[in-house]
C-alpha cells in the first residue's frame, strides 16, 4: 500500500492532498480539505486520464514540464507549480519585479529621487511591445540595477524603492 502526500501551487496558493492506493490496482483514495474521494482511474494514453468518481467521469490531460505541471480539464488549462514536500516557499519580495523578459529602453528616474505610487520608473520592450514598470508605493529610489539597452529577465528586480512611511 502506497500512501503519499502531494502539494501543488496555483495562483499563489498551495494545495495539499494525500493519496492512497486501494487494493485494486486502479483504485485510489484522494484526500483534500478533510474530504476523501474514492476514485478509479485508467490512463487511456500517455497523460490522458479517465477518472471515475461516484457516478461522474473526470476526463483530464496531464503534462509535465521542468518546474510545472499542467492539467487540462473541461476545456481549461491549469498551470501548477510543483512543490516538493521538503521545500519551503520562497518569500515573495514586497517590491518591484519585472513581469517579463525584455530589453530596457528607458529609465525615467535617478537614484535618490523620490517617487509617487504609479509613477513610471522604467520602460521595457519585449516582443515588440512596451511595458511600463511603475512604482508600487510612494518612496525613494535606492538602487537602479539596469540601464538602457540592458537585458532584463522575468522576476528580476530592476529598481529598489525604499518605502516612505505614512
Amino acid at each position, binding site marked *: 500500500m502506497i500512501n503519499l502526500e502531494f502539494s501543488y501551487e496555483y495562483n499563489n496558493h498551495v494545495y495539499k492532498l494525500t493519496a492512497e492506493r486501494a487494493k485494486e490496482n486502479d483504485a485510489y483514495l484522494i484526500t483534500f480539505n478533510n474530504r476523501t474521494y474514492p*476514485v478509479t482511474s485508467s490512463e487511456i494514453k*500517455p497523460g490522458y*486520464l479517465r477518472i471515475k468518481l461516484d457516478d461522474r467521469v473526470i476526463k483530464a490531460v496531464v*503534462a509535465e514540464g521542468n518546474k510545472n505541471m499542467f492539467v487540462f480539464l473541461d476545456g481549461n488549462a491549469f498551470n501548477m507549480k510543483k512543490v516538493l514536500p521538503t521545500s519551503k516557499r520562497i518569500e515573495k519580495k514586497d517590491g518591484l519585479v519585472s513581469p517579463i523578459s525584455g530589453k530596457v529602453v528607458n529609465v525615467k528616474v535617478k537614484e535618490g529621487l523620490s517617487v509617487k505610487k504609479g509613477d513610471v520608473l522604467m520602460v521595457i520592450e519585449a516582443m515588440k511591445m512596451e511595458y511600463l514598470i511603475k512604482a508600487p508605493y510612494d518612496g525613494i529610489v535606492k538602487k537602479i540595477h539596469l540601464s538602457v539597452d540592458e537585458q532584463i529577465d522575468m522576476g528580476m528586480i530592476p529598481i529598489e524603492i525604499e518605502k516612505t512611511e505614512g
Partner: protein
Amino acid sequence: MFKKILIANRGEIAIRILKACQEMGVKTVAVYSDADAYSPHVQLADESAPLGNPLSSESYLNIQKIIHAAVETGAEAIHPGYGFLAENPDFAYACENAGITFIGPKSDVIKLMGNKIEAKQRMEKADVPIIPGYHGLRQENNFLFKQGKKIGFPLLVKAAAGGGGKGMRIVHREEELEEAIEGAKREAKSAFGNDTLLLEKYLDKPRHIEFQILADAYGNIVHLFERECSIQRRHQKVIEESPSPVMTAEMREKMGKAAVKAAKAVGYTNAGTIEFMVDSSLNFYFMEMNTRLQVEHPITEATTGVDIVKWQIRIASGEKITLCQETLSQRGHAIECRIYAEDPANGFLPCSGVLTKVEPPVGPNIRNDMGIETGMEVTAYYDPLLAKLIVSGENREDAINKMVWALSNYVLLGITTNTSFLKEILTHEAFRRGDITTHFIDTHFKNWFATRPEIPVEALIALSVYDMMNAKSGVQKEVTVSSVSDPYSPWKRAGKWRIGD
C-alpha cells in the same frame, strides 16, 4: 509557374505558404534563425537556409541575408508572408533588383500605402471616404499637439509607417497628449525606423471591417467580401469573423466597390486588404491598406472557397485572375481565434517556455494553422502568436458553437495561453448578439483578470492520481530523450519527458 519559391518568414504563416507551394508542385526554401533550426517550417520545406542570430534584425528582417539565400538556392520568387519584411518597400525593391519576383505588389505601391498620410491623400482624391485628421508632414511635437487639440478628443495618435497596434495611442484628454506623442514616436522609431505620426478623430463605437481584394497585372480586380475584425486588444486583432454581423447586401456592395476603387487608384497588384472604420450609423471610412497577406485570410477562404495564397503565387507568376465578381460567393459563417502565448490573468503578458503537449481540435470545418508542435520551445524573440484556429458553419450561431467546442478541446499545455479568454468572449451575451465594436474587450473585460477561476477539485484529484500512478513504478520519471543526438534539438532542451508526450 515558378519552379522554386523562398518563404521569408517563420511559424504558422510560413507553413501555410509552404503547403500551398507543395500542392502546386513548386519547390520550397525555408529560412530560419538559430532559434528556429528545429521548427516545423524548416522540417516541412524541401530545402532550408540558415540566417544565424535569432534577433529579428539579424535574421528575418535582414534583407541582404534573405536575398543571398534566394540567390544561393536558385529561388525565383520570395513570399514574405505577413510581418517582418512583408510591407518593407526596400525589400520588395531589393528583390526586383536581384531579378527575384517579390510575391506582393510593386515596391513603389508598398511605399505609397505604407505612408499613411500619402495613402489617405490618394484615397481622398479617388473619392474613397476618409476620417478627419491631420496627415501632414510637419512633425514637431508642439505642432502635433496643436493639431491634436484642433481635431478634438478622443484622438488617435498613430505611426504613419505603423501597423499592428505599434506606435499607436488613444488620447482622451489634453493632459495625456504630450506623453502620447513622445511614446508613439519612440515606439514607431524602434519598430519601423520612422517616427512620423498622424492624428485622427477617434470614432465613437467604431467597427473595424476590412475587404480582401485580389488584383492581377492585367487590371483585373475582384474583392472577396468583408471581414469583421472589431474584437481587438491594444489594437491587436484577437477574433475575426466573416461575414460581419452588421453588414447588409447593399452596404457590402458599396464597400466592395470602394475597396476595388482604392486598389485601382494606386495600380495595386496581388492580394491586399482595405481596412475601413465603420461608425455607429454605419458610415465607413478608409483607414489603411495592408499590402500583403493578412493573418485572418483563412476566414475569407472558408466563406468564399478561394485559396488566397495560391492566387498570390499565380498572380506573381503572371497569370490572370479567372475568378469573377459575379460568380464569387460568400457562404456560411467563419470565425478565427488567434491563440497567443500570453497570460490574460496577468495583464496579458507574453509567455515563453516549452510546449509539453499540443493537440489541436480536429473536426469538420475546423482548420488549424499552426507553427507549433509538442516539445517545441517558444522563445521571446518573436511574436507570441502560436496558432490560429479557424472554424466555419452554416450560420453565425453554428460557427460560434463550433468554436467554443474547438477551444474547449484544444490541448495546449506548457505555456499559458489565451484560450480561456477567447472562450469568455465567444460566450459573452453581447458577442452572441453581434453587438461588437473595437472597444468590446475594454468595455466588457476591463477587470477580467480579477476573476481568475478557482482551481476545481477535479484538477487536483487528476494531478495526484497522475503522480500516484507514476510513483508506483518510480522509473520513468528519470527517462530523458537520450536518443536524440543533436545537442540543440528541442527534445534535448525540453528536459524531462514522459513517454508519448
